[in-house]
């Protein structure tokens, strides 16, 4: 039996899909204002390309695919604008003892017991501050992998990076976060 062809109904887009699309975007970019702009751009792009809609997917799937492109464009903009300028903390020797801990950056024993403080609101706030202080690209990959729990493959595809790149970024992000929490919470 032939499947019923789906048609677009732009009059209902805002009511039916704005929240879903906003949630999709905000999870990925972690910024409400950017997410709102991306949703608006996606609706505009959808309107422009409505004539190309073939009715093979649902309206929502089609709108999500357009938003996804907008999110990827945003990621790429971040990569090209800030990738070169970002200053990262170095933890390992790049001279004679290449890859060994730098003396001043070796992990220190922690005074505070994590288990005891784990539900502490201040602790969570400090963690948020440390994540916000990461270079934007590190924060983005870290959030997608660790907080939103996306699959490695999915992140690589969305950000157009290799798995090796991803693990280097995750490693740098986590090393900086560990240090930030050590300085501002565990040994503060």
């Amino acid at each position, binding site marked *: 039996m032939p499947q019923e062809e789906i048609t677009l109904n732009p009059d209902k887009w805002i009511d039916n899909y704005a929240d879903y699309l906003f949630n999709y975007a*905000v999870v990925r970019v972690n910024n409400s204002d950017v997410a709102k702009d991306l949703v608006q751009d996606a609706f505009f792009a959808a*309107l422009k390309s409505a004539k190309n809609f073939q009715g093979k997917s649902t309206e929502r799937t089609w709108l999500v695919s357009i938003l996804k492109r907008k999110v990827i464009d945003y990621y790429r903009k971040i990569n090209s604008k800030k990738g070169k300028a970002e200053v990262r903390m170095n933890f390992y020797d790049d001279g004679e003892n290449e890859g*060994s801990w730098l003396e001043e950056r070796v992990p220190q024993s*922690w005074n505070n017991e994590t288990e005891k403080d784990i*539900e502490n609101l201040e602790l969570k706030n400090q*963690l948020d501050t440390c994540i916000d202080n990461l270079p934007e690209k590190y924060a983005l990959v870290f959030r997608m992998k*660790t907080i939103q729990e996306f699959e490695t493959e999915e992140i690589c595809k969305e950000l157009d990076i290799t798995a090796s790149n991803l*693990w280097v970024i995750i490693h740098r992000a986590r090393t900086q976060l*560990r240090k930030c929490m050590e300085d501002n919470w565990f040994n503060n």
Partner: protein
Amino acid sequence: MFKKFKITCDEATTICDKSQYKEASFIEKLRLNWHFLQCKFCKLYSIQNNKMSLLFGIKAADCKQHKKCLSKADKEKLAAEFEKMRL
């Protein structure tokens, strides 16, 4: 033979991070454990890394609980812009 297992602290901690997501291979884990026998700093990093993962897990659970929606005002603004575009 053990030369094959020799890795730097940078490589060891990268594997350590990867293993927090259960994505380190068997060989990588062997190399990591061999490295731990010789490096107390990476061993300490690993212990603290487990604690950090616990923290990240709580943060992830918090985020999942809060579904985000547009405010009424945002929707109205979006609808107005959208209408302008359609004209």
